[in-house]
């Protein structure tokens, strides 16, 4: 196949669509997670300052903050696992067809 044929092939188009679908899904999760956190801070200050377990010492805010950091990190891991397992092999396959 020539590069022009590659660009027009179903396989390639599907790969591109899939790539952005995965990216945007993960971005939306990140958005919901982060803005959920920020909006809780803006609107529910008492809840943020309250204790996770009554009588304990750790506050909800600490746990949520830690959760968003870990969650954001996990999303990058999810993306890399997807890219390694699905995207790279698909790219390699298409590349083989190009002469």
């Amino acid at each position, binding site marked *: 196949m020539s*590069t*022009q044929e*590659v*660009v027009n092939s179903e396989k*390639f188009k599907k*790969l*591109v669509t899939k*790539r*952005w679908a995965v*990216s*945007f899904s*993960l*971005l939306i999760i*990140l958005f919901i997670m*982060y*803005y959920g*956190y*920020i*909006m809780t*801070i*803006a*609107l529910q*200050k008492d809840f*943020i*300052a309250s204790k996770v377990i009554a009588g*304990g*010492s*750790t*506050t909800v*805010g*600490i746990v949520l*903050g*830690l959760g*968003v*950091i*870990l969650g*954001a*990190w996990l*999303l*990058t*891991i999810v*993306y*890399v696992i997807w*890219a390694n397992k699905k995207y*790279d092999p698909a*790219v390699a396959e*298409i*590349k083989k067809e*190009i002469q």
Partner: protein
Amino acid sequence: MQSTLGQANPIAILFFSLVVLGTMVITYFAAKRTRSTSEFYAAGRSVTGFQNGLALAGDYMSAASFLGISGIVALQGYDGIVYAVGYLVGWPALMFLVAEPLRNLGKYTFADVVASHLKSGPIRIASAIGGILVVLNYTIAQMVGSGKLIELMFGMKYLYAEVIVGTVMLLYVLFGGMLATTWVQIIKAVLLLLGVTVLAILAMAHFDFSFAKLFMSVENLSSLTGTQYHGKELFRPGGLVSSPLDAFSLGLALMFGPLGLPHILMRFFTVPDAKEARKSVVYATSFIGYFYILIPIVGFSAAVILTKNNLFSLMDKGGNMVAPLLSEILGGSPFLGFIAAVAFATILAVVAGLTLAASSAMSHDLYVSVFKKGNATETEQVKVARISTVIFGVTAVAMGILFENMNVAFLVGLAFAIAASANFPALFLSIAWKRFTTYGAVWSIIAGGLSATILIVLSPTVWVNVLGYEQAIFPLKNPALVSMSLSFFVALAVSLALPEKEAQEKFDADKVRTYLGIGAE
């Protein structure tokens, strides 16, 4: 307890000399391998994903994020954590939206990517100016902050501090190019992560490694003598996130700002391919996430330990000295010396990275690509790169001295706002949108950059805090919500109104490069 902070600490000077000496040795060896433009700007594309992850983390973990955020946590409590979280969330976004296509489409600068299927001249001028504006604002904030910091920490005169930072970082960039700058960044990142880890462990040892005990002690702060704290208030979000709209706007700048910071984007051209680029983001996110989890521990422990030792009076208003003071109490003057040297290395490395990014925009984007239309020999290109490095370095020092007594904290916010509003929309649309046009890009950069700058001046951040007026004209502290939306709107409107057929054809032809890496440099 007394502190030796601000006096010439022999151990600080020893560590400081070791850092400078070590990085100079690296620069010497890097200089031997820095002859071509690809070596000067992109370290010959020889950096691995792991190394680049450390270097990216190094670029991002500035002295402001180490000393500044631990200080905010110690003084204001929870607001510091909101910053820490906010500074991390840009990284996954960077991964999802730009990292791999950026690597595949670019050569030395992000403007290469924006220009890849559009008309080179106007695009490069616009994106180079957007890039330089971001870097300049960021650099001025770094230079002024670093001068003050060195003054406080080593008792050195502000003027000397500026000149020393300027000279040492110029030596790195000028002779060692990207290779030296990367290694300086890696060493600094390792030292910083090590320093913060040791500091957090020593601090937690004070609380018998129990978070419950740490949080209890913070809460009971109000009962200690000589305290200005209401302990419980430290767990309550303060003024940082006041209205939802304000929060949303600041969040946008923090999330999309990193996707338009030229010195961060430039690092993606130092790795061999898109896969390594992807890996570097994971490593960078891991290191930065780890760092921002430790920083609140340092801040909260400092609030308790410094109050117990009656050292709170020694702190500056911004809280920058919280971490150094804590390290002195916990590890004596040797550890203070180490932390001070780490802070200094951090400043040097960050300013060096910024200078290299500015230099590449001036020489590669403006001089070689626009002025010489790409017709410049390797020798000439490297020569121009070195000249622009000196020009920017001298400007940075001059600006640092000029702005000594100004409140420049808002400049980092401005840099993020311009990055998110001018650079990011153009970069992202050029990667993902077929119908994006040259004029769409140019006008979106202008609209985003100008509106971000004007609105931040009219916002409470500058209008009230810096200029001292009663009431701000523009209500949001960070303009990203308006300026970034405007930039995207202008990009869409102009591109749809004036279609550019050539750009669409080139976009399709470039697709194998964007997604498969075929033909990537």
